[in-house]
């Protein structure tokens, strides 16, 4: 039985052009990243430093969270705590309802995707406008993002042009990226100026000063934080860093890893609300404290959501984000899915890796991503009773050389049969797009015994 991700990927992979375009666009990000990294003489030292700071932070997370809360409050921030997605959504929607907010502008936040905030707000009659261009595209299309940095990377310019025509009334047949971007800019400027509240994510939160740090290229988060008088920032509790002097370590890694830029266009360090405005920070757990308690998985909390592991992952590039069917796809999505539990089917994703290890090597935070996938495989063995018995028998056979040899001879006899396509062939999934190699007839062991050893 092939995995569900593979079955979903089958739909994607049927469109050869779409696969090639997706693979090339995403790999282009990886290559931009490589070019940017080549210019940083202390890259590996930075990774080491950043992961060391994060390890220290996670080891003292209780103290740093309290410190952050104290400092943020002193700067005039209202701090809220949410144990899970539902309570985070409730806090945000009650804040909005209490101020009769009708229209919200939102900048990209993987956390609110994880929590499923938009539908909750919409159910209360609040219009939520995603303003990151890629997020806006998938919102208009009624789809989730397929990548955490470039949410609409799976869509062609022609599909986006047609979507804009249908939803925004832009000229039919327009497919030029620059003109499409201008059209979206004009449409969203109006939304920005009309909105009563802004919701943003948080890239980093500085315990020392109680500041939040929000990073974008488009300037949408800055518009959101500048215009309406209510700003709600939602952060996973792992986003903390100890001190302001730690921030450049992470900033030097983040944008280079994500898109190959030396830094994002806007890096806003926000300490307290704008004069006359309100700033609320919602600190969300949603499975993170469980990860913290697990030696094998704590490291995943170091993730800064740069997307480098998606860009390098050959499985992600070929199968596409939707094949994962989780808010965060790719290697980090597969690592986090079983704890965040946003959707069913997360545990199976630990299998969706060839264990090539490029994700771990590219990760700016040095998270052992493929090691974590292996850890999930050990902990959540999805194998049914039958598979367990078969595995046990196979392993037993392999500890007994005579049996191993016999099994090998038997295998040779059945080999040519297995290579044919017939209903119920246990090798069917190997034969999907592949042939079985020819069997040499005699194993190395048998040949060695025949040629080199005197028969006993």
């Amino acid at each position, binding site marked *: 039985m092939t995995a569900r991700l593979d079955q979903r990927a089958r739909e994607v992979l049927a469109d050869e052009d779409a696969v090639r375009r997706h693979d090339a666009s995403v790999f282009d990000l990886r290559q931009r990243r490589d070019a940017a990294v080549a210019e940083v003489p*202390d890259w590996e030292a930075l990774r080491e430093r950043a992961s060391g*700071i994060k390890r220290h932070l996670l080891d003292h997370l209780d103290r740093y969270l309290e410190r952050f809360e104290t400092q943020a409050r002193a700067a005039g921030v209202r701090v809220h*705590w949410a*144990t899970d997605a539902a309570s985070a959504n409730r806090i945000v929607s009650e804040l909005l309802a209490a101020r009769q907010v009708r229209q919200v502008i939102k900048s990209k936040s993987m956390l609110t995707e994880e929590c499923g905030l938009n539908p909750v707000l919409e159910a209360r009659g609040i219009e939520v406008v995603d303003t990151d261009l890629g997020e806006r595209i998938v919102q208009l299309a009624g789809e989730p993002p397929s990548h955490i940095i470039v949410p609409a990377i799976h869509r062609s310019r022609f599909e986006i042009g047609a979507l804009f025509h249908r939803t925004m009334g832009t000229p039919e047949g327009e497919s030029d990226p620059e003109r499409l*971007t201008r059209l979206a800019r004009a449409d969203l400027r109006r939304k920005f100026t009309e909105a009563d509240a802004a919701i943003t994510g948080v890239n980093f939160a500085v315990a020392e000063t109680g500041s939040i740090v929000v990073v974008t290229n488009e300037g949408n988060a800055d518009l959101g934080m500048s215009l309406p008088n209510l700003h709600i920032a939602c952060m996973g509790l792992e986003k903390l860093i100890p001190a302001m002097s730690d921030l450049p370590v992470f900033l030097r890694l983040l944008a280079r890893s994500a898109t190959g830029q030396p830094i*994002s266009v806007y890096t806003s360090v926000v300490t307290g609300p704008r004069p006359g405005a309100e700033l609320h920070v919602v600190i969300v757990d949603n499975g993170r404290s469980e990860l913290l308690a697990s030696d094998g998985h704590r490291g995943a909390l170091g993730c800064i959501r740069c997307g480098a592991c998606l860009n390098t992952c050959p499985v992600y590039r070929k199968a596409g984000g939707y094949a994962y069917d989780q808010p965060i796809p790719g290697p980090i999505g597969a690592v986090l899915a079983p704890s965040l539990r946003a959707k069913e089917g997360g545990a199976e994703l630990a299998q969706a890796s060839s264990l090539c290890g490029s994700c771990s090597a590219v990760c700016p935070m040095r998270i052992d991503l493929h090691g974590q996938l292996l850890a999930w495989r050990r902990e959540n063995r999805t194998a049914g009773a039958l598979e367990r018995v078969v595995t046990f028998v196979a392993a037993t056979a392999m500890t007994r050389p005579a049996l191993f040899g016999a099994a090998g001879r038997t295998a040779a006899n059945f080999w040519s049969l297995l290579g044919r396509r017939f209903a119920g062939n246990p090798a069917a999934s190997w034969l999907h797009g592949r042939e079985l190699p020819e069997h040499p007839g005699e194993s190395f062991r048998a040949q060695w015994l025949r040629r080199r050893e005197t028969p006993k």
Partner: protein
Amino acid sequence: MVATKGNTEVSAREEILGRIRLAALHKARHPGQHPPPALPGGWETFAGRLESVGGTPHGPVAGAELRRMAFDLASTRAGDGRIVAEPTAADWLGPGPWQLASDAAIPHAYEDVAVGFVRGRVACAENGAVAVAGSDATSRALLVLCQHLVLIVSVDSVVPDLHAGFAALPADAFGHHHLTWISGPSKTADIEQALVYGAHGPLTLDVIGVER
């Protein structure tokens, strides 16, 4: 009921912190400051990097030349549009076709601004970013609402790397709501990875280096 809601949030805080206290190991030490990398500094390096991120460097200029350059930029970028300068930038520029930004104005008052002049405090050579202090951009909306942004920085404020950039910020940098690093004009590549300048924020970014 307000009281109930308040209690729920208090208990959420205690629940989360309780779980984290149990899980936090209190072991790993902070690895200390990152030693500065060997990167080149100076205005020329900064200017080259700024161009690579889509911005336009000008200068270095001094004295009266600064004002002339600002006039030129204002007319090229603005056409007949409205020009606004933050007071600390206007101090450097002297009188001109720019109105002074006022923190008494509502943010939406800058919706129709064609060109904004704002002072930058530190320029970072490794990434072309300029740090704008909250005290120099009290009308924060101006930074992102204007169609064209002009930042004015002292050439002496160029540092080689971002660690030095944070260290060089004024002491009260985090005491004024925001501190914003800006590297180039706003941009997006969300449609087929095609790079487009002018996503939501300014379409162009000019940085004038000033010798004082």
